[in-house]
């Protein structure tokens, strides 16, 4: 059983929560749940709804899109961060590589806690804004607002850079902190 201070230290490992003050994180630490994980276990699949953020306390987790492994997450690292913001499907699967322990923060619990803590939300919005600004400065051409009603844009954009949908997914993964190392690094520059 982790102590509240340990939980706060672990929650600080999630990029989205890194700027949040410790006392505000304490509220989240109270509602976070410890989950034991075993090798080979699927934490979530690509089609599952994103409903919780996970932080690895012990063990390792592999994140994959289709057959392609996108990254591995170890102790102190977070995955599925975007779930706190957006309830869309995961878009990638998470499978346990080594036995261990996860700390999970469900979106419903997060919002219940955040509803009484404006500062917590302000800090998260600040982090999101910073990440978006980094993304925009890194790839300004993708930050352009395209005119509506041009479905052919999506088709024509598939090329070396991939389709708009792929780019959107990549953007989310960069915010999520689970993009392949090179690009995530660029996003957090």
């Amino acid at each position: 059983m982790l102590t509240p201070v340990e939980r706060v230290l672990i929650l600080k490992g999630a990029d989205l929560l890194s700027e949040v003050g410790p006392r505000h994180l304490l509220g989240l630490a109270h509602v976070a749940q410890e989950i034991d994980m075993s090798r080979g276990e699927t934490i979530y699949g690509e089609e599952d709804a994103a409903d919780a953020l996970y932080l690895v306390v012990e063990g390792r987790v592999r994140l994959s899109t289709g057959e392609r492994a996108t990254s591995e997450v170890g102790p102190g690292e977070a995955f599925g961060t975007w779930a706190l913001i957006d309830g869309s499907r995961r878009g990638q699967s998470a499978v346990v590589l080594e036995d261990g322990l996860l700390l999970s923060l469900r979106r419903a619990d997060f919002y219940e806690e955040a509803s009484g803590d404006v500062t917590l939300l302000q800090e998260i919005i600040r982090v999101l804004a910073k990440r978006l600004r980094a993304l925009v400065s890194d790839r300004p051409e993708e930050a352009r607002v395209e005119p509506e009603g041009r479905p052919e844009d999506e088709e024509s954009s598939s090329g070396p850079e991939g389709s708009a949908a792929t780019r959107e997914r990549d953007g989310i993964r960069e915010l999520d902190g689970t993009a392949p190392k090179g690009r995530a690094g660029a996003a957090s520059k």
Partner: protein
Amino acid sequence: MSLSRAFARRLGLDPDGLALLARMGALSAILFGAYTIAKVLRDSLFIGEYGALSLPYAYIAVAFCSAGYVFLESRVAHAFPRLGARRFNQWTAILLSLALAMALPRAPHVTSGLLYLWVSSQAMMLLPHFWAMGLDLWDSQRARRLFPLLGGCGLVGGLAGGAIAAASAKVLPPTGLIWALPALLLVVRLLTSGIEGRHVEHAASIPAATRDSSWDIIRRSRYIKILAVALTLSVCISTLVDFQFKIFAQKMYPEPHDLTRFLGTFQVGLNSVSLLLQFGATGWLLQRLGLGPSTGLQPGTVLVFATWAAVTTGGWAVVAMRWLQGVAALTLGKSSNEIYYAAIRPHERRRIKPALDTLIERWSDAVVGCILLVVMRLLQIPVGVIVGMTAMVAAMWLFVLFHLDRQYGRAFREALSRRAFDPEDVPESMRVPAARQALLEALASGEERRVLVALRFCSLARHPLLARAVRERLADPSPAVQAGAIVAMEGMGLRDPEGTVERLTRSPDEGVRRAAVHHVIALSPGGLAFARRVLDGPDDPLRAEVVEALADRPASAEALFDRARIDAWLASGRPDDLLLAARALGAIDASFAAEALRVLLEHPDTEVRRAALAAAARRPRAASLPILLPLLETPGLGHEARRAIVPLGDAAVPALERLLAGQGGERARAQAAGALARIATPRARRALATLVRSPDARLRHLGLSGLARIRLETGRPVLPRSLVHRLFLREMRDYRACALPAAALRQHAVPELRLLGESWRESAGRAVERGVQALACWYDPRPLFGVLDRLRPDTSGDAAPALEYLGRLLPRRVFHAVHRVLEQEAQVVPGEDQEGERLAGWIRAAWENGDAWLRAVAVRASRCVPGFDARLFEADDARETPEAPGREAPEAIVRAEIAALGRAPVRAAAVGRC
């Protein structure tokens, strides 16, 4: 610790900042040295060729030259970024000085005149550019400390320049000395280039240059206009004093060589004393006296000496006056004048400062020149009368300075109050024809967002043309626009004779339906019949809308919500019916309503209880209080319970006081404080005031935030001023205790210790918040919101405007105590004191602080300090504090950490590294 490091720390600079200061100091010295040589050459050559009595003509000519050059420079500034303008100015100066140096031996008479024009116009613009660059590099608080140093460096340069000019008069003709100017200006250019790298980095955070012209900026700002008047008067004084001095100097030294030597020696003497003052007393005086009195020393000195000179009519009194005025101008006057510019927004300052400085200086000279010509040539008035005129202008200057100083404080107050706006201003502004036209254009634009915004403002404008345009929006294909149009119609009191709105009550869109129901019930003659029809019908969502719409119309509600209908809804037991009953009970005062509401407040369904609480808030009954109080602690209902308790007023205060005293948990205590703040009666205020002296920081926070809220709502002070100061100082002492370890541990490599630093920082932020809330109990809270935003340790905002404002708001002794606290924090270098006994000291301080979270983190951090004596934690006498259900009590967190001390950190990789 090296001397430079100690010096940097004293100035609140990092090593890079110190290097930048050194470069700026060197630039200042060379620039002012070159300018002093130029001035000595200018005066000696001009007086030698044309005579001192020709100076008024020169003043007028210089004004025209300056205007022409400022126009040219503004064109360049418009076409190029700021760095381009500065570079243009410096290269122009180098080229013109070269040209004049070459021309002087060939045509001394004409070149002396041209030199006078160049030095007084184009070359002079180098100085405002230098100070503008300084203001971009440092904020107003730093400027107070650093500008006197830069001014001192300038004086060293001036001293050297004067000495060179005086010494060279013996060995070199002026045609030789003038070659020093292009050489020195070239060095100035090279140094500026070196600094610009740092400058550009800083300037990135400054908003882009404004498109408004300098004149527009000056015209719309009262502050800039007063500043301009003050600068004008200061220049008039300088010119008048200088003119009298030069007349006397020419009489004493008719030979140009003697005059050059005298002027050079005079500059040396002037700059030497200024230098001693600058490094010895100017910074201290600026800090202690403040801007107004510091700037006022210059006109004060002139007033005294001009009166003396007028009485004695002695020439040496004029020399003494010129000398003292020069010393005051070069030391306090220069630094404080530049700091007054800090109250102008950076992009506007950048635009107007060089032009304002140069034009004011030169046109003031021209005005003085014209006056002198009229006085001396036409009216044949003797020179002695000018001394009296000087005293009068000095008195006027003092008066304007008094106003300028008040406006300076007000400028910061307005900047800090921007978050708070006055909603009363909006309706007035919407009634002007231009606003009406803008609304009509927006309504016809077809852009949904624009139309919606316009609809929101239409109810404030009320005009037949707008009424027609709003009605037309009912046919808009967008449901949001339809709903907005109906709401606007209701706000404007527009009826719907064609029945379009009633038809929209059957719209599939919820927003449109709601707006239409409200409109029909509020404004339609058949509104009551419509409501009865819907309530008797089967459409649950529409019934809910009708009940909601009737809530604000008690007369109609009493007629429709009779006992039979309410009982039927209660008896059905359906959640929808129970919600309808709860909402209906909020609209009526009937005797049976109290009992029915009690049933609903105790219902297990949270939504039903929430609706019942909303009804209780609308129809407050003291009898409901015992049921409402426990709901303050219920998750998800505390906010609604508080809203239901507040309308009970004083009747609720005793019960809330008991909660404040700790009868409930922490959550109940916070809600009780919030409720008392909203009740805001004298009794509620007294209840909150008992908390502000508590040793428990959490209680102080509740008390101070509640009282500050009452202060904001009522507009009247809620605590005595002296008490507010004492409370503020106490919180700032708390802040100091937290800020030092926070700063020292900010960048620690070990996560546990970094967490301790962050927790200290959070505590420091809360202390600042409490301190500012304490001030808000007496002072106007609106600018204090801005002060809080800038002083919080977790924000990277510029604290200087907040300190400027507090410096004007608070008594000197209170402000200096605060200033010292913040300076002390600035002197902590992150990364220092991270090991050994100092670290153990921070942990012990956290443990002894009394805050449960800090204690818990201190226990955790103690693992990372080898040899730390953990027996300290055995003396834990913490008592159990009741908490909200489902939460660990604060002291339980501490005990959990103490219990975990015995076990190894099994999850070291995720949790920490120690």
